[in-house]
Protein backbone atom coordinates (compact mmCIF):
# COMPACT_ATOMS: atom_id res chain seq x y z
CA UNK A 1 0.00 0.00 0.00
CA UNK A 2 2.76 2.38 1.00
CA UNK A 3 4.72 1.50 -2.14
CA UNK A 4 1.72 2.16 -4.32
CA UNK A 5 1.22 5.55 -2.68
CA UNK A 6 4.87 6.39 -3.16
CA UNK A 7 4.61 5.37 -6.78
CA UNK A 8 1.54 7.55 -7.21
CA UNK A 9 3.32 10.47 -5.58
CA UNK A 10 6.30 10.08 -7.92
CA UNK A 11 3.98 9.86 -10.90
CA UNK A 12 2.20 13.02 -9.80
CA UNK A 13 5.47 14.91 -9.32
CA UNK A 14 6.77 13.78 -12.73
CA UNK A 15 3.53 14.81 -14.40
CA UNK A 16 3.58 18.23 -12.70
CA UNK A 17 7.24 18.71 -13.71
CA UNK A 18 6.38 17.74 -17.29
CA UNK A 19 3.53 20.25 -17.45
CA UNK A 20 5.78 22.93 -15.91
CA UNK A 21 8.44 22.26 -18.53
CA UNK A 22 5.86 22.49 -21.29
CA UNK A 23 4.67 25.81 -19.88
CA UNK A 24 8.23 27.07 -19.66
CA UNK A 25 8.78 26.13 -23.32
CA UNK A 26 5.61 27.97 -24.38
CA UNK A 27 6.61 31.04 -22.35
CA UNK A 28 10.08 31.07 -23.88
CA UNK A 29 8.65 30.83 -27.38
CA UNK A 30 6.22 33.65 -26.63
CA UNK A 31 8.98 35.84 -25.19
CA UNK A 32 11.32 35.15 -28.10
CA UNK A 33 8.62 36.12 -30.61
CA UNK A 34 7.81 39.19 -28.49
CA UNK A 35 11.44 40.37 -28.65
CA UNK A 36 11.67 39.60 -32.37
CA UNK A 37 8.62 41.77 -33.05
CA UNK A 38 8.77 44.47 -30.37
CA UNK A 39 12.46 44.50 -29.36
CA UNK A 40 13.12 47.68 -31.29
CA UNK A 41 10.52 49.60 -29.28
CA UNK A 42 11.86 48.26 -26.01
CA UNK A 43 15.32 49.54 -26.98
CA UNK A 44 16.58 45.96 -27.25
CA UNK A 45 16.44 45.02 -30.94
CA UNK A 46 17.40 41.51 -32.01
CA UNK A 47 20.70 42.09 -33.82
CA UNK A 48 20.81 40.94 -37.42
CA UNK A 49 24.55 40.08 -37.36
CA UNK A 50 23.97 37.53 -34.61
CA UNK A 51 21.01 36.07 -36.54
CA UNK A 52 23.30 35.80 -39.59
CA UNK A 53 26.03 34.13 -37.54
CA UNK A 54 23.54 31.58 -36.25
CA UNK A 55 22.19 31.05 -39.77
CA UNK A 56 25.68 30.31 -41.06
CA UNK A 57 26.20 27.84 -38.26
CA UNK A 58 22.84 26.09 -38.59
CA UNK A 59 22.52 26.24 -42.35
CA UNK A 60 25.63 26.58 -44.41
CA UNK A 61 27.73 24.30 -42.20
CA UNK A 62 25.03 21.61 -42.37
CA UNK A 63 24.80 21.64 -46.20
CA UNK A 64 27.36 18.88 -46.94
CA UNK A 65 25.85 16.31 -44.59
CA UNK A 66 22.29 17.18 -45.69
CA UNK A 67 23.37 16.73 -49.31
CA UNK A 68 24.87 13.32 -48.60
CA UNK A 69 21.89 12.09 -46.60
CA UNK A 70 19.19 13.32 -48.95
CA UNK A 71 21.05 11.73 -51.88
CA UNK A 72 21.03 8.46 -49.96
CA UNK A 73 17.35 8.80 -49.07
CA UNK A 74 16.46 9.54 -52.70
CA UNK A 75 18.35 6.47 -53.92
CA UNK A 76 16.88 4.30 -51.17
CA UNK A 77 13.32 5.35 -51.97
CA UNK A 78 13.84 4.72 -55.69
CA UNK A 79 15.27 1.24 -55.05
CA UNK A 80 12.53 0.30 -52.59
CA UNK A 81 9.82 1.82 -54.80
CA UNK A 82 10.85 -0.12 -57.90
CA UNK A 83 11.22 -3.32 -55.84
CA UNK A 84 7.75 -2.97 -54.30
CA UNK A 85 5.94 -1.93 -57.46
CA UNK A 86 7.51 -4.77 -59.46
CA UNK A 87 5.07 -7.12 -57.68
CA UNK A 88 2.23 -5.44 -59.59
CA UNK A 89 4.32 -4.79 -62.69
CA UNK A 90 3.83 -1.08 -62.06
CA UNK A 91 7.47 0.08 -61.86
CA UNK A 92 6.72 2.97 -64.19
CA UNK A 93 4.57 4.58 -61.49
CA UNK A 94 7.52 4.76 -59.08
CA UNK A 95 8.06 8.48 -59.67
CA UNK A 96 4.70 9.30 -58.10
CA UNK A 97 5.56 7.64 -54.80
CA UNK A 98 9.13 8.85 -54.68
CA UNK A 99 8.35 12.48 -55.50
CA UNK A 100 5.50 12.79 -53.02
CA UNK A 101 7.26 11.01 -50.16
CA UNK A 102 10.49 12.98 -50.57
CA UNK A 103 8.84 16.38 -50.75
CA UNK A 104 6.08 15.82 -48.20
CA UNK A 105 7.85 13.62 -45.67
CA UNK A 106 11.46 12.57 -45.97
CA UNK A 107 13.19 15.89 -46.66
CA UNK A 108 11.70 17.80 -43.74
CA UNK A 109 12.12 14.83 -41.44
CA UNK A 110 15.76 14.12 -42.25
CA UNK A 111 16.63 17.84 -42.17
CA UNK A 112 14.88 18.24 -38.84
CA UNK A 113 16.65 15.26 -37.29
CA UNK A 114 20.03 16.42 -38.57
CA UNK A 115 19.56 19.97 -37.34
CA UNK A 116 18.35 18.65 -33.96
CA UNK A 117 21.53 16.61 -33.65
CA UNK A 118 23.86 19.37 -34.83
CA UNK A 119 22.37 22.67 -33.70
CA UNK A 120 19.79 21.76 -31.05
CA UNK A 121 22.37 19.97 -28.96
CA UNK A 122 24.92 22.76 -29.47
CA UNK A 123 22.34 25.29 -28.30
CA UNK A 124 21.56 23.23 -25.19
CA UNK A 125 25.26 22.81 -24.37
CA UNK A 126 25.97 26.51 -24.90
CA UNK A 127 23.11 27.68 -22.70
CA UNK A 128 23.85 25.08 -20.06
CA UNK A 129 27.49 26.13 -19.83
CA UNK A 130 26.49 29.79 -19.71
CA UNK A 131 24.07 29.03 -16.91
CA UNK A 132 26.58 27.24 -14.67
CA UNK A 133 29.19 29.95 -15.35
CA UNK A 134 26.74 32.69 -14.23
CA UNK A 135 26.95 34.19 -17.73
CA UNK A 136 23.14 34.35 -17.93
CA UNK A 137 23.03 36.25 -14.62
CA UNK A 138 25.73 38.52 -16.01
CA UNK A 139 23.52 39.31 -19.03
CA UNK A 140 20.53 40.04 -16.79
CA UNK A 141 22.39 42.44 -14.51
CA UNK A 142 23.78 44.25 -17.56
CA UNK A 143 20.20 44.98 -18.55
CA UNK A 144 20.39 42.64 -21.54
CA UNK A 145 17.40 40.32 -21.73
CA UNK A 146 18.79 36.77 -22.04
CA UNK A 147 15.84 35.58 -24.14
CA UNK A 148 16.32 38.44 -26.59
CA UNK A 149 20.09 37.94 -26.71
CA UNK A 150 20.35 34.13 -26.65
CA UNK A 151 17.04 32.66 -27.85
CA UNK A 152 15.56 35.04 -30.42
CA UNK A 153 18.52 34.96 -32.89
CA UNK A 154 18.71 31.15 -33.23
CA UNK A 155 14.90 30.95 -33.35
CA UNK A 156 14.72 33.38 -36.23
CA UNK A 157 17.68 31.75 -38.02
CA UNK A 158 16.09 28.34 -37.57
CA UNK A 159 12.69 29.45 -38.92
CA UNK A 160 14.33 30.85 -42.06
CA UNK A 161 17.00 28.21 -42.59
CA UNK A 162 15.00 25.02 -41.99
CA UNK A 163 12.66 25.53 -44.99
CA UNK A 164 15.64 26.53 -47.17
CA UNK A 165 17.61 23.44 -46.14
CA UNK A 166 14.53 21.31 -46.77
CA UNK A 167 14.11 22.82 -50.23
CA UNK A 168 17.72 21.91 -50.97
CA UNK A 169 17.15 18.39 -49.63
CA UNK A 170 14.07 18.13 -51.92
CA UNK A 171 16.10 19.02 -54.99
CA UNK A 172 19.02 16.75 -54.16
CA UNK A 173 16.79 13.83 -53.16
CA UNK A 174 14.62 14.11 -56.28
CA UNK A 175 17.71 14.36 -58.48
CA UNK A 176 19.34 11.27 -56.93
CA UNK A 177 16.13 9.27 -57.18
CA UNK A 178 15.77 10.41 -60.81
CA UNK A 179 19.26 9.22 -61.69
CA UNK A 180 18.53 5.74 -60.36
CA UNK A 181 15.06 5.53 -61.90
CA UNK A 182 16.31 6.75 -65.29
CA UNK A 183 19.06 4.14 -65.37
CA UNK A 184 17.01 1.27 -63.94
CA UNK A 185 13.90 1.81 -66.07
CA UNK A 186 15.92 2.93 -69.12
CA UNK A 187 14.15 6.26 -69.28
CA UNK A 188 15.66 9.72 -69.51
CA UNK A 189 16.26 12.23 -66.76
CA UNK A 190 14.26 14.80 -68.70
CA UNK A 191 11.21 12.56 -68.85
CA UNK A 192 11.54 11.94 -65.12
CA UNK A 193 11.77 15.67 -64.47
CA UNK A 194 8.65 16.30 -66.56
CA UNK A 195 6.80 13.67 -64.61
CA UNK A 196 7.91 15.10 -61.26
CA UNK A 197 6.80 18.59 -62.24
CA UNK A 198 3.40 17.34 -63.35
CA UNK A 199 2.91 15.27 -60.18
CA UNK A 200 4.00 17.78 -57.56
CA UNK A 201 1.65 20.57 -56.68
CA UNK A 202 2.60 23.73 -54.84
CA UNK A 203 0.58 22.40 -51.94
CA UNK A 204 2.88 19.38 -51.57
CA UNK A 205 5.95 21.59 -51.50
CA UNK A 206 4.44 23.98 -48.96
CA UNK A 207 3.33 21.05 -46.81
CA UNK A 208 6.97 19.97 -46.44
CA UNK A 209 8.35 23.48 -45.98
CA UNK A 210 5.77 24.45 -43.34
CA UNK A 211 6.64 21.33 -41.38
CA UNK A 212 10.32 22.23 -41.65
CA UNK A 213 9.68 25.66 -40.13
CA UNK A 214 7.74 24.06 -37.26
CA UNK A 215 10.56 21.58 -36.69
CA UNK A 216 12.97 24.50 -36.53
CA UNK A 217 10.94 26.08 -33.73
CA UNK A 218 10.75 22.75 -31.89
CA UNK A 219 14.50 22.12 -32.11
CA UNK A 220 15.32 25.62 -30.84
CA UNK A 221 12.87 25.64 -27.98
CA UNK A 222 13.69 22.09 -26.84
CA UNK A 223 17.41 22.92 -26.92
CA UNK A 224 16.93 26.14 -24.98
CA UNK A 225 14.61 24.62 -22.37
CA UNK A 226 17.06 21.80 -21.68
CA UNK A 227 20.04 24.17 -21.64
CA UNK A 228 18.30 26.53 -19.23
CA UNK A 229 17.38 23.68 -16.88
CA UNK A 230 20.99 22.53 -16.42
CA UNK A 231 22.12 21.98 -12.87
CA UNK A 232 25.01 19.99 -11.49
CA UNK A 233 28.07 21.20 -13.36
CA UNK A 234 29.65 19.74 -16.48
CA UNK A 235 27.95 16.39 -16.01
CA UNK A 236 24.60 18.15 -15.96
CA UNK A 237 25.43 19.89 -19.25
CA UNK A 238 26.20 16.52 -20.86
CA UNK A 239 23.00 14.98 -19.53
CA UNK A 240 20.79 17.83 -20.70
CA UNK A 241 22.48 17.91 -24.12
CA UNK A 242 21.67 14.24 -24.68
CA UNK A 243 18.16 14.82 -23.37
CA UNK A 244 17.64 17.72 -25.75
CA UNK A 245 18.51 15.59 -28.80
CA UNK A 246 16.19 12.76 -27.74
CA UNK A 247 13.37 15.19 -26.93
CA UNK A 248 13.81 17.21 -30.10
CA UNK A 249 13.71 14.15 -32.35
CA UNK A 250 10.69 12.75 -30.50
CA UNK A 251 8.94 16.11 -30.74
CA UNK A 252 9.68 16.27 -34.47
CA UNK A 253 8.32 12.80 -35.23
CA UNK A 254 5.19 13.24 -33.10
CA UNK A 255 4.47 16.73 -34.42
CA UNK A 256 4.93 15.42 -37.94
CA UNK A 257 2.26 12.80 -37.39
CA UNK A 258 -0.16 15.30 -35.85
CA UNK A 259 0.47 17.84 -38.61
CA UNK A 260 -0.12 15.26 -41.34
CA UNK A 261 -3.28 14.04 -39.60
CA UNK A 262 -4.69 17.56 -39.30
CA UNK A 263 -3.72 18.76 -42.78
CA UNK A 264 -4.59 15.77 -44.93
CA UNK A 265 -7.98 14.98 -43.48
Amino acid sequence: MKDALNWLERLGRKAAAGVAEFGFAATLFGQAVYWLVLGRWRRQPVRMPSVAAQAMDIGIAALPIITVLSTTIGLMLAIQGIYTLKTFGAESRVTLGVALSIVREFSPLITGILVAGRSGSALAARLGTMRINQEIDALSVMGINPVRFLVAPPLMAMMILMPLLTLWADLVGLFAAGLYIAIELQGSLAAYADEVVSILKLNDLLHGLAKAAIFGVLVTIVGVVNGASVSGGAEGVGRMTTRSVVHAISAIVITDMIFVFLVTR
Partner: protein
Amino acid sequence: MSNAPPSIEVINLDTHYGDRQVLKNVSLSVNPGEIFVIMGGSGSGKTTLLNHLLGLLRPTSGTIRILGKDINTLSSLEMQDLRTRMGVAFQSGALFSSMSVGDNIALPLREHTDLDEMTIGIVTRLKLEVVSLAGFEHLMPAELSGGMIKRAAFARAIVMDPKLLFCDEPSAGLDPVVASSIDDLILRLRDAMGMSIVVVTHDLDSTFKIADRICVLDKGEVLALDTVDAIRNSPNERIQNLLNRRTEEAEVDPDAYLRRLLGEKEKHANQPTQGRTGL
Protein backbone atom coordinates in the same frame (compact mmCIF):
# COMPACT_ATOMS: atom_id res chain seq x y z
CA MET B 1 28.42 62.95 1.84
CA SER B 2 26.01 62.30 4.66
CA ASN B 3 23.34 64.54 3.12
CA ALA B 4 23.09 62.62 -0.11
CA PRO B 5 20.44 59.89 -0.30
CA PRO B 6 21.85 56.40 0.21
CA SER B 7 22.90 54.37 -2.85
CA ILE B 8 21.24 51.27 -1.47
CA GLU B 9 18.54 51.02 1.13
CA VAL B 10 17.26 47.66 2.33
CA ILE B 11 14.33 47.69 4.75
CA ASN B 12 13.09 44.61 6.65
CA LEU B 13 14.01 42.11 3.93
CA ASP B 14 12.66 38.58 4.44
CA THR B 15 13.30 35.83 1.91
CA HIS B 16 12.62 32.11 1.65
CA TYR B 17 13.84 29.18 -0.40
CA GLY B 18 10.79 26.94 -0.31
CA ASP B 19 9.93 26.69 3.39
CA ARG B 20 13.38 27.61 4.63
CA GLN B 21 13.86 31.23 5.63
CA VAL B 22 17.19 32.48 4.31
CA LEU B 23 17.22 36.15 5.25
CA LYS B 24 15.53 37.41 8.39
CA ASN B 25 14.53 41.03 8.70
CA VAL B 26 17.66 42.44 7.05
CA SER B 27 17.96 46.21 6.98
CA LEU B 28 20.97 48.18 5.82
CA SER B 29 21.96 51.21 3.79
CA VAL B 30 25.00 52.04 1.71
CA ASN B 31 26.14 55.65 1.41
CA PRO B 32 27.41 57.20 -1.83
CA GLY B 33 31.16 56.78 -2.32
CA GLU B 34 31.40 54.16 0.37
CA ILE B 35 32.98 50.70 0.26
CA PHE B 36 30.51 48.49 2.05
CA VAL B 37 31.56 44.93 2.86
CA ILE B 38 29.02 42.18 3.46
CA MET B 39 30.80 39.52 5.45
CA GLY B 40 29.79 36.15 6.77
CA GLY B 41 30.60 32.48 6.70
CA SER B 42 29.34 29.97 4.18
CA GLY B 43 25.58 29.64 4.33
CA SER B 44 25.12 32.96 6.12
CA GLY B 45 22.93 34.21 3.26
CA LYS B 46 25.36 36.74 1.82
CA THR B 47 25.10 35.42 -1.74
CA THR B 48 21.30 35.40 -1.44
CA LEU B 49 21.39 39.01 -0.22
CA LEU B 50 23.59 39.95 -3.19
CA ASN B 51 21.20 38.26 -5.63
CA HIS B 52 18.35 40.28 -4.14
CA LEU B 53 20.31 43.52 -4.42
CA LEU B 54 20.94 42.66 -8.08
CA GLY B 55 17.22 42.09 -8.63
CA LEU B 56 17.77 38.46 -9.64
CA LEU B 57 15.47 37.16 -6.89
CA ARG B 58 12.20 38.46 -5.52
CA PRO B 59 11.90 38.87 -1.77
CA THR B 60 9.04 37.48 0.30
CA SER B 61 8.63 40.87 1.93
CA GLY B 62 10.62 44.02 2.49
CA THR B 63 11.83 46.87 0.33
CA ILE B 64 15.05 47.28 -1.64
CA ARG B 65 15.87 50.73 -3.00
CA ILE B 66 18.78 50.99 -5.42
CA LEU B 67 19.86 54.54 -6.28
CA GLY B 68 16.56 55.75 -4.81
CA LYS B 69 14.32 53.38 -6.79
CA ASP B 70 12.31 50.51 -5.31
CA ILE B 71 13.39 47.64 -7.56
CA ASN B 72 10.30 45.56 -6.94
CA THR B 73 7.92 48.16 -8.28
CA LEU B 74 9.93 49.26 -11.31
CA SER B 75 8.73 48.47 -14.82
CA SER B 76 11.12 46.31 -16.84
CA LEU B 77 12.17 49.32 -18.92
CA GLU B 78 13.01 51.35 -15.79
CA MET B 79 14.86 48.34 -14.39
CA GLN B 80 16.86 48.14 -17.62
CA ASP B 81 17.80 51.81 -17.19
CA LEU B 82 18.77 51.22 -13.59
CA ARG B 83 20.93 48.26 -14.55
CA THR B 84 22.98 50.37 -16.93
CA ARG B 85 23.92 52.46 -13.88
CA MET B 86 25.22 49.54 -11.85
CA GLY B 87 28.04 47.09 -12.53
CA VAL B 88 28.65 43.60 -11.25
CA ALA B 89 31.89 41.62 -11.03
CA PHE B 90 30.90 38.00 -10.46
CA GLN B 91 32.93 35.53 -8.44
CA SER B 92 33.78 33.41 -11.47
CA GLY B 93 34.12 36.49 -13.68
CA ALA B 94 31.23 35.22 -15.83
CA LEU B 95 32.95 36.48 -18.98
CA PHE B 96 31.21 35.23 -22.13
CA SER B 97 33.46 32.41 -23.23
CA SER B 98 32.54 32.74 -26.89
CA MET B 99 33.72 36.38 -27.07
CA SER B 100 37.17 37.93 -26.78
CA VAL B 101 38.00 40.02 -23.72
CA GLY B 102 37.54 43.19 -25.75
CA ASP B 103 34.12 42.13 -27.04
CA ASN B 104 33.09 41.15 -23.52
CA ILE B 105 33.91 44.61 -22.21
CA ALA B 106 32.38 46.37 -25.20
CA LEU B 107 29.10 44.42 -25.00
CA PRO B 108 27.21 46.79 -22.64
CA LEU B 109 28.28 49.77 -24.79
CA ARG B 110 27.18 48.04 -28.00
CA GLU B 111 23.82 47.08 -26.49
CA HIS B 112 22.94 50.24 -24.59
CA THR B 113 24.57 53.11 -26.46
CA ASP B 114 24.71 54.43 -30.01
CA LEU B 115 28.46 55.01 -29.92
CA ASP B 116 30.43 54.21 -33.06
CA GLU B 117 32.90 51.32 -33.09
CA MET B 118 35.89 53.70 -32.90
CA THR B 119 34.66 55.26 -29.65
CA ILE B 120 33.68 51.88 -28.23
CA GLY B 121 37.21 50.62 -28.96
CA ILE B 122 38.73 53.61 -27.19
CA VAL B 123 36.50 53.27 -24.12
CA THR B 124 37.20 49.53 -23.98
CA ARG B 125 40.97 50.03 -24.07
CA LEU B 126 40.66 52.84 -21.52
CA LYS B 127 38.92 50.50 -19.06
CA LEU B 128 41.49 47.78 -19.74
CA GLU B 129 44.19 50.32 -18.82
CA VAL B 130 42.37 51.05 -15.55
CA VAL B 131 42.49 47.38 -14.54
CA SER B 132 46.08 46.98 -15.87
CA LEU B 133 45.13 44.61 -18.67
CA ALA B 134 46.14 46.82 -21.59
CA GLY B 135 46.85 44.88 -24.77
CA PHE B 136 44.88 41.80 -23.77
CA GLU B 137 41.65 42.66 -25.61
CA HIS B 138 42.16 40.05 -28.34
CA LEU B 139 42.59 37.09 -26.00
CA MET B 140 39.74 34.73 -25.21
CA PRO B 141 38.66 34.35 -21.55
CA ALA B 142 39.97 30.75 -21.53
CA GLU B 143 43.48 32.09 -22.18
CA LEU B 144 43.53 34.31 -19.06
CA SER B 145 44.73 33.48 -15.56
CA GLY B 146 42.39 33.65 -12.55
CA GLY B 147 43.50 37.13 -11.53
CA MET B 148 43.27 38.45 -15.08
CA ILE B 149 39.70 37.09 -15.42
CA LYS B 150 38.70 39.02 -12.28
CA ARG B 151 40.32 42.17 -13.67
CA ALA B 152 38.55 41.75 -16.99
CA ALA B 153 35.27 41.25 -15.12
CA PHE B 154 35.93 44.53 -13.28
CA ALA B 155 36.60 46.27 -16.58
CA ARG B 156 33.28 45.01 -17.96
CA ALA B 157 31.49 46.03 -14.76
CA ILE B 158 32.74 49.64 -14.93
CA VAL B 159 32.52 50.16 -18.68
CA MET B 160 29.25 52.12 -18.39
CA ASP B 161 30.71 54.28 -15.57
CA PRO B 162 28.23 52.96 -13.01
CA LYS B 163 27.28 54.76 -9.81
CA LEU B 164 27.24 51.45 -8.00
CA LEU B 165 29.55 48.45 -8.24
CA PHE B 166 28.95 44.99 -6.78
CA CYS B 167 31.81 42.52 -6.30
CA ASP B 168 31.14 38.92 -5.37
CA GLU B 169 34.10 37.31 -3.57
CA PRO B 170 36.75 39.34 -5.41
CA SER B 171 39.66 37.53 -3.75
CA ALA B 172 38.29 33.96 -3.81
CA GLY B 173 40.63 31.49 -5.47
CA LEU B 174 43.52 33.93 -5.85
CA ASP B 175 46.95 33.88 -4.22
CA PRO B 176 47.53 36.56 -1.53
CA VAL B 177 49.56 38.87 -3.76
CA VAL B 178 47.04 38.88 -6.60
CA ALA B 179 44.17 39.16 -4.08
CA SER B 180 45.83 42.21 -2.57
CA SER B 181 46.24 43.79 -6.00
CA ILE B 182 42.48 43.32 -6.57
CA ASP B 183 41.87 45.12 -3.26
CA ASP B 184 44.05 47.98 -4.47
CA LEU B 185 42.04 48.04 -7.67
CA ILE B 186 38.77 48.34 -5.71
CA LEU B 187 40.17 51.24 -3.65
CA ARG B 188 41.45 52.95 -6.81
CA LEU B 189 38.10 52.59 -8.56
CA ARG B 190 36.29 54.22 -5.67
CA ASP B 191 38.79 57.08 -5.42
CA ALA B 192 38.96 57.69 -9.17
CA MET B 193 35.29 57.32 -10.07
CA GLY B 194 33.56 58.04 -6.76
CA MET B 195 31.26 55.04 -7.04
CA SER B 196 29.71 53.17 -4.14
CA ILE B 197 31.08 49.66 -3.96
CA VAL B 198 29.44 46.67 -2.30
CA VAL B 199 31.81 43.78 -1.71
CA VAL B 200 30.63 40.34 -0.62
CA THR B 201 33.47 38.34 0.89
CA HIS B 202 34.62 36.07 3.66
CA ASP B 203 38.24 37.21 3.36
CA LEU B 204 39.12 39.06 6.59
CA ASP B 205 42.40 40.63 5.44
CA SER B 206 40.83 42.14 2.40
CA THR B 207 37.79 43.29 4.38
CA PHE B 208 39.89 45.27 6.87
CA LYS B 209 41.97 46.72 4.06
CA ILE B 210 39.17 48.11 1.92
CA ALA B 211 36.02 48.48 4.02
CA ASP B 212 34.50 51.74 5.22
CA ARG B 213 31.71 49.88 6.92
CA ILE B 214 31.09 46.19 7.48
CA CYS B 215 27.86 44.25 7.70
CA VAL B 216 28.29 40.87 9.38
CA LEU B 217 25.65 38.36 8.35
CA ASP B 218 25.06 35.23 10.39
CA LYS B 219 22.38 32.64 9.67
CA GLY B 220 20.43 35.17 7.66
CA GLU B 221 20.48 37.92 10.26
CA VAL B 222 22.49 41.11 10.48
CA LEU B 223 24.75 40.41 13.44
CA ALA B 224 26.50 43.77 13.29
CA LEU B 225 26.71 46.75 10.98
CA ASP B 226 29.40 49.24 11.83
CA THR B 227 32.75 50.79 10.96
CA VAL B 228 35.88 48.66 10.72
CA ASP B 229 37.19 49.69 14.17
CA ALA B 230 33.89 49.12 15.88
CA ILE B 231 33.60 45.64 14.41
CA ARG B 232 37.19 44.85 15.41
CA ASN B 233 36.50 45.88 19.00
CA SER B 234 33.06 44.36 19.21
CA PRO B 235 32.35 42.50 22.44
CA ASN B 236 30.02 40.09 20.63
CA GLU B 237 31.36 36.57 20.98
CA ARG B 238 30.23 35.36 17.56
CA ILE B 239 31.89 38.28 15.81
CA GLN B 240 35.10 37.65 17.71
CA ASN B 241 34.87 33.96 16.75
CA LEU B 242 34.54 34.96 13.12
CA LEU B 243 37.42 37.45 13.32
CA ASN B 244 39.73 35.02 15.11
CA ARG B 245 38.77 32.09 12.90
CA ARG B 246 37.54 30.04 15.86
CA THR B 247 35.11 27.29 14.99
CA GLU B 248 31.88 27.26 16.91
CA GLU B 249 30.63 24.26 18.78
CA ALA B 250 27.41 23.30 17.11
CA GLU B 251 24.63 22.59 19.57
CA VAL B 252 24.01 18.86 19.56
CA ASP B 253 20.45 17.66 19.24
CA PRO B 254 20.55 13.93 20.11
CA ASP B 255 17.28 13.12 18.36
CA ALA B 256 18.26 14.82 15.14
CA TYR B 257 21.68 13.20 15.31
CA LEU B 258 20.12 9.75 15.65
CA ARG B 259 17.75 10.44 12.77
CA ARG B 260 20.65 11.48 10.54
CA LEU B 261 22.62 8.34 11.41
CA LEU B 262 19.64 6.16 10.61
CA GLY B 263 19.41 7.85 7.24
CA GLU B 264 15.87 9.04 7.77
CA LYS B 265 14.90 11.92 5.60
CA GLU B 266 14.60 15.36 7.06
CA LYS B 267 11.15 16.82 7.04
CA HIS B 268 11.57 18.90 3.90
CA ALA B 269 14.20 16.80 2.17
CA ASN B 270 11.79 15.69 -0.52
CA GLN B 271 10.82 19.15 -1.56
CA PRO B 272 12.94 20.64 -4.28
CA THR B 273 14.67 23.84 -3.31
CA GLN B 274 12.96 26.66 -5.02
CA GLY B 275 15.64 28.31 -7.06
CA ARG B 276 15.36 30.73 -9.87
CA THR B 277 13.35 29.53 -12.80
CA GLY B 278 13.51 30.65 -16.36
CA LEU B 279 16.48 32.13 -18.12
